[in-house]
């Protein structure tokens, strides 16, 4: 059926009925759902309506590109936003803080797909330094990763700045200074480590947004990942692909939240030992 849609031939009535029967679309929704669920538990997600290949194979074929893109973007986010956030907090209201905040403000307001095209225009069309589209070596990675991570960088700078500011005036910081702990150690051990807890939540929550954002970025840069594949499958009404994609994304999201909880316990012994928070 999808083949007929793609080839623009109007299907006959009989062909439609036959195709519906073959795909099980003539049965009631609950029956369809439980059939799908039963098979999905055995990792059988059916076959794509368009290519006829098993959906899981197709998704797994596209997944590494997406994981690579989001992974590099997450790394970039952390590498850029953590130092900038600390810098902004330590120099609150002075020039480093103002510059960082202006940058972060810019970052949350710019639409990622437009930023992508601006970067392509500047670096590929005008300067010819970097490839515009597709996947290849490390050079292909640069523009998509910047595009995807700018929003997260901006939001996390803000989170991290607030988190450090909150810890700056705790009594244990004052005490550490009073007993002569060197400033670097005060910032590193006492302020930084305590500020990590909120940012772990922020990053964990953000991973879901990164995967969502990668759908847009993959489409801008013709990056061969699951996001682009899923959008195509929406247009083709390729439901088995879409179902598998959504299940995968939800799974990744749940895993991230679990990861956050585990990291929490590692960072904060108060949570690990289930004790009451000390005032």
């Amino acid at each position, binding site marked *: 059926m999808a083949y007929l849609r793609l080839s623009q031939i109007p299907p006959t009535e009989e062909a439609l009925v036959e195709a519906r029967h073959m795909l099980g679309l003539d049965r009631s929704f609950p029956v369809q759902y439980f059939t799908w669920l039963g098979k999905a538990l055995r990792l059988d997600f059916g076959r794509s309506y368009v290519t006829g290949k098993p959906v899981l194979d197709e998704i797994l074929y596209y997944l590494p590109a997406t994981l690579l893109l989001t992974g590099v973007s997450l790394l970039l986010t952390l590498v850029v936003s953590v130092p900038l956030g600390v810098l902004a907090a330590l120099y609150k209201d002075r020039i480093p803080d103002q510059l960082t*905040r202006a940058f972060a403000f810019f970052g949350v307001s710019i639409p990622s797909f*437009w930023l992508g*095209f601006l970067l392509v225009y500047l670096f590929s069309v005008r300067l010819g330094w970097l490839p515009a589209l597709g996947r290849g070596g490390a050079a292909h990675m640069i523009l998509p990763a910047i595009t995807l991570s700018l929003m997260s960088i901006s939001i996390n700078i803000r989170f991290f700045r607030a988190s450090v500011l909150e810890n700056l005036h705790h009594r244990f910081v004052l005490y550490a200074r009073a007993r002569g702990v060197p400033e670097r150690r005060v910032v590193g051990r006492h302020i930084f480590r305590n500020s990590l807890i909120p940012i772990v939540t922020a990053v964990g929550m953000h991973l879901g*947004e990164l995967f*969502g954002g990668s759908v*847009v970025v993959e489409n*801008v840069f013709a990056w061969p990942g699951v996001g682009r594949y899923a959008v195509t499958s929406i247009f083709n009404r390729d439901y088995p692909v879409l179902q598998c994609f959504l299940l995968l994304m939800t799974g990744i999201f749940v895993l991230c939240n679990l990861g956050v909880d585990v990291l929490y316990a590692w960072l904060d012994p108060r949570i690990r030992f289930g004790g009451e928070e000390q005032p």
Partner: protein
Amino acid sequence: MTLLRTLLSGRTTRLAFVAACAVLLVALFAPLLSSWDPDDIDLSQKLQAPSREHLLGTDHLGRDVLARLLHGARASLGSVAVIVAAILLLSLSVGSVAGYAGGMVDAFLMRLCDTFLTFPTFILAMFLIGILGAGMTNVILAIVCTHWAWYARIIRGLVLSLKTREHVLAARVAGTGQFRLVMRHILPGVLPQILVLATLDIGHMMLHVSGLSFLGLGVQPPTAEWGVMINDARQYIWTQPQLLFYPGLAIFVTVMAFNLLGDGLRDALDPVGETGGWGK
């Protein structure tokens, strides 16, 4: 009025306020501002450079770019207005009932909120659009579904703290009915903070709407919308980059204006809560 004065005392916020008002006016009076019909196709005039007739030139179907930009403001602001109204309606009713009633009702409504809080916006949007088909209604539905629960939770918290205030207790002793009590004595205390939150979120919602429209999942062509315009223009990046540039700039400026305005509003309402803000 004093609030407005505090709000407009900052230079950036004043600028943002003017910009946001300008976009609003453009959205309201778009047909009067340009003599061209944004959907008027004229293939003999396609991809024209800016001229006196077409101030920003024409796109690949000969449509006037300026007219499409002006009309695009309607799609963006219109959808966001519907989204914000729906979110406020839903979250105010759920949040105030949960906060005021407490007990089992509260527990049930809050678990419901938790369920909605788990979905990332973009993934839920793709899910709804995949099942119900592409279109603005489904985008609006998806954004409302993923955002209202945050608001409901905050409103519940505010209602909880207001419930035991003296003026509410006094009204209760005086025999005010429950509905009236919530409407007259509790909600007025909740509303300003919620409006600030909503303003802070407008920019982010616009980015979602135009992002999905860019993918072809939201507003459908030929409707003039900034995301749709960028998608239309993407194949002309080598020859006509300005077609990509203008709509993106429009989104960027509008989103920035609303973000700055939201920040200004928050600072004006809550000058002490500095740590979380972008500052002035």
